[in-house]
């Protein structure tokens, strides 16, 4: 069982996230079109395309998982400077910086890093849980990671919980009234549609969870005696 994330694994997870974003381009775009301007699929596609390119260039020997996350963040903020690209870019930057000296991330590191991301986005965007934003997925996921860490769950287990909580947070945004961004201008009329940014938040935990399951499977396969 995998207990820590290496630099390579962190990079692999970011690539997986880029794949998921690619697959979800249309859904991100059409959710954003309902309450926003419909560009979220495009902008996240651009941003994660740039991240993919940047990460293909890095010398993993010179990085930490945290520095990889930070690099992904600045890349996202430059390549996709929309509301979410900027918030998430800075979220990844600060989340990475929080753990930038840790050579491999354990569950505690991951939970701390994730908490920093939530706090950064909340601070910059002046938004809170329940405002019908990406935070509704992210902070549900972050809470689940914290709880799992306290409970002593495995990394993979924790990520399963976090993923489920993030998706739940995303789906729950359908009942909420938007308080932020373009969607905030719809007032009551924003109820009845999920938030596009929250979908993006769920995809992040999906990528971590899928990635860690994959590494677990590979390491299990390569060392069956363990």
């Amino acid at each position, binding site marked *: 069982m995998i207990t820590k994330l290496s630099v390579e694994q962190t990079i692999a997870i970011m690539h997986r996230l880029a794949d998921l974003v690619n697959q979800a381009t249309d859904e991100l775009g059409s959710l954003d079109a309902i309450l926003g*301007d*419909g*560009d979220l699929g*495009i*902008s996240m596609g651009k941003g994660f395309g740039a991240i993919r390119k940047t990460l293909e260039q890095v010398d993993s020997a010179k990085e930490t998982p945290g520095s990889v996350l930070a690099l992904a963040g600045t890349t996202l*903020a*430059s*390549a*996709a*400077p*929309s*509301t979410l*690209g*900027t*918030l998430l870019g*800075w979220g990844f930057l600060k989340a990475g910086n929080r753990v930038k000296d840790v050579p491999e991330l354990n569950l505690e590191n991951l939970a701390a890093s994730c908490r920093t991301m939530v706090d950064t986005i909340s601070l*910059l*965007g002046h938004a809170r849980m329940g405002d019908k934003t990406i935070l509704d997925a992210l902070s549900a996921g972050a809470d689940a990671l914290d709880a799992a860490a306290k409970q002593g769950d495995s990394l993979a287990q924790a990520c399963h919980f976090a993923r489920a909580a993030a998706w739940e947070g995303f789906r729950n945004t359908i009942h909420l009234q938007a308080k*932020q*961004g*373009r969607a*905030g*201008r*719809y007032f009551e009329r924003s109820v009845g549609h999920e938030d596009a940014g929250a979908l993006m938040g769920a995809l992040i935990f999906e990528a971590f969870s899928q990635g860690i399951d994959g590494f677990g499977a590979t390491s299990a396969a390569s060392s069956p005696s363990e």
Partner: protein
Amino acid sequence: MKKFMNEPELFEADMLEGILLAHDNELQSLTADRRAIVRLTSPAVGKVGLATGGGSGHLPLFLGYVGKGLLDGVAVGDVFASPSASVMLDATRRINGGSGVLYLYGNYGGDVLNFDMAAEMARAEGIAVESVVGADDVASAPKGMEDKRRGIAGLFYLFKVAGAKADQGASLSEVKRVAEKAKQRTRSMGVAFSPCYLPFNGKESFNIGENEMEVGMGIHGEPGIIRLPVESSKRIVQRIMEAIEGDLPLKSGAEVSVLINGLGATSKEELYIVYRDVHRWLAERQISVAFPYVGEFATSMEMAGMSISIMELDEELKELVAAPCDTPFWRQDP
């Protein structure tokens, strides 16, 4: 969708190359990707630097207001997308003539976030930075929630007034004060007849029926407050003027500047018909017009529609509006 363009991903790059080829005697770009553009003469030592920025697709907004008597620099985003904080920082550094920099831009999530970050980074480098965020569209949020309103064509007045004030050698706080004053006294609202099309995916920005209009539509196709069958110019003007007047009461004897802004496809002929009806609406209420502007000031690519902006004048604003200005896109003689 039909557009004059090459690869859609190069829409912004090709456009910026064209602008700089055509106007290299007035503008310069600071980076290879041409996203930070400033006056050829920047920085103006001692003068407060004025920067704006926002998505592409709104020409002459934003880039078109960089020039004499108006702004010093601009950060250019992709079509309908904010430029990044780092591009804004590039422009800020260059146009700072030692007296600080004022950001003037429209109230959109991405722009606000990025300009706020750029301001913080600039301040960390010792550059004094202030911001005034245009939010003139009365259709975009009700009274009491003014800070949620979008910035549309009324931004022009902020640029015009701040640009003239900065040219007089005023301090950052003085320039900010007049920009704030212009903001407090400016209201806008528009009507859209047709969507525009995004170059990268060819999609229309919204759907609308053969004989419908969207009242209060934003310049990215953000929904307005009501969808109605198309009405006469007079009736549309009445609707808009009543909404504006409800938010910015205008007394008999007041003096205003009027800006009729075409969103892209609407002909100048129609804009002047609208101006006629606005002028008459105001004249009936003994409100006089000092500086009428009729043309394209903040477009939404090829969208058909127009917006009306009203700025209530006082002596100070009147003098600042009257000042000459000169950019490759817009000129006003004394």
